[in-house]
């Protein structure tokens, strides 16, 4: 049986067609083949959340999804949502609150928080914590991260300003 497979998908708005090894993880495909190194590789077994990317509009673990599985799918990475400006306010809030320390978890945090901003715009601190519980920050900068998400939620409610 063939240990490679052909995939054709859309990554950050661009069509991609590739032959990939069946065992290649989505996050490794994005990083190594497409040079989209914003998605990070941490624990590689679904615990840390550093590899969080969007698959057909929802966040997934890039290390628990095979590149082979995204045939026909739409992928968005931190590079994509940055380029569209979708998370500009969130990133600004991260910067203002110094919520990115070493920065390793930051892309995953932003991708997760971006989903929270859309699925639960009324989230309080407890819900933000709960939603981000699947993303490790080993600088332990959680308070600042939650502050940044809280600021962004408030800003969006008040019509887009985060300041």
């Amino acid at each position, binding site marked *: *049986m063939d240990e490679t497979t052909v995939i054709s998908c859309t990554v*950050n708005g661009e069509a991609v067609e590739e032959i990939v090894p069946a065992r290649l993880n989505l996050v*490794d495909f994005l990083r190594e083949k497409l040079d989209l190194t914003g998605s990070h590789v941490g624990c590689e077994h679904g615990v840390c959340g550093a590899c969080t990317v969007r698959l057909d509009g929802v*966040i*997934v*673990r890039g*290390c628990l999804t095979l590149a082979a599985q995204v045939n026909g799918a739409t992928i968005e990475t931190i*590079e994509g949502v940055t380029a569209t400006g979708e998370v500009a306010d969130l990133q600004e809030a991260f910067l203002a609150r110094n919520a*990115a320390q070493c920065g390793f978890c930051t892309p995953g945090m932003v991708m997760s928080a971006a989903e929270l901003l859309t699925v639960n715009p009324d989230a309080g601190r407890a819900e933000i914590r709960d939603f981000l*519980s699947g993303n490790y920050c080993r600088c332990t900068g959680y308070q600042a991260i939650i502050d940044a998400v809280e600021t962004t939620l408030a800003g969006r409610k008040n019509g887009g300003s985060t300041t």
Partner: protein
Amino acid sequence: MPSMVSWRLRGGAQRVRYRYVHQPNWGKIPVKAPPFAYVRATSLDQVFDLKAQHGDDARILAGGQSLMAMLNLRLDAPELLIDINGLDALKGIDEDGDAVVIGGLTRHVELERSALVATHLPLIAEAMPNIAHPAIRNRGTIGGSIALADPAAELPACVVALDAEIKLVSGAGERTVKAREFFHGLYDTARNDDELVAAVRVPKSPVSRRYFFSEITPRRGDFASAGLAATVEIDGDTMSDLTLVFFGLAGRPILAARTGDAASGAALTGDIDQIIGQVHAVLDEELETQADLHSSAKMKSHLARVLTKRALTQFAAGRS
């Protein structure tokens, strides 16, 4: 714009530029899992045929939230992955008379947001946010959770508590196994290797029934050190048909039937601590807990008592 903007996007470039060059040298690409072949199944018959050909060397890939981790850690080395994610026949949540039928490929997030589940299966609705994290719930499936039967998993305990039925399909046909007879031990179930969990049929919960779901975890979303899915009927002050299903305590969900029976008929008035004490006494005799990496058997027994107390306290507070 903040500093985290990719350097390649600076200078106003809105278009991400990729390397499309095909690299025949796969040695440069990091891989975690051992090599395997991959088939995107387009029909159940194709899955059955492939399982018949490859037997135990083939694994079914559903949500992959446990299987992929096992492969990355090289705890498993199948020759073939059969991806069933394209099989729409296994998806969906539907009413069927006095039951709700949940397709095996239904993702956790769908159960979490389903109005049908919220109305008719409140225990499951309450359990869902406890399952791992949002990104995992976006992929993980009920069929995968039940087929794997992780001892700390929430859905196996819920389907046991709600006395659901598991529908299994294979090339030989289909059969139904009661959830209470499905879980045999650590990752050991009534499912044969060539069978898929096609659906779970859960009886609609009576409006009068009360529910409790809680688990104790080192970190929100982690595997539970101990968990409890409980249901009860309360008439006036009197409890009946108390169903306690513990998980994370041993190899499989434990239905504490003797404890439930002993507590049935008890009135939730007066000294609630006395009732809790009586229930604890039976529970201590009935439950056999096993240590895991994080907690000793003794600690698990303690946590089971804590959860039972919380359940009875909640039931007492919410009576009629």
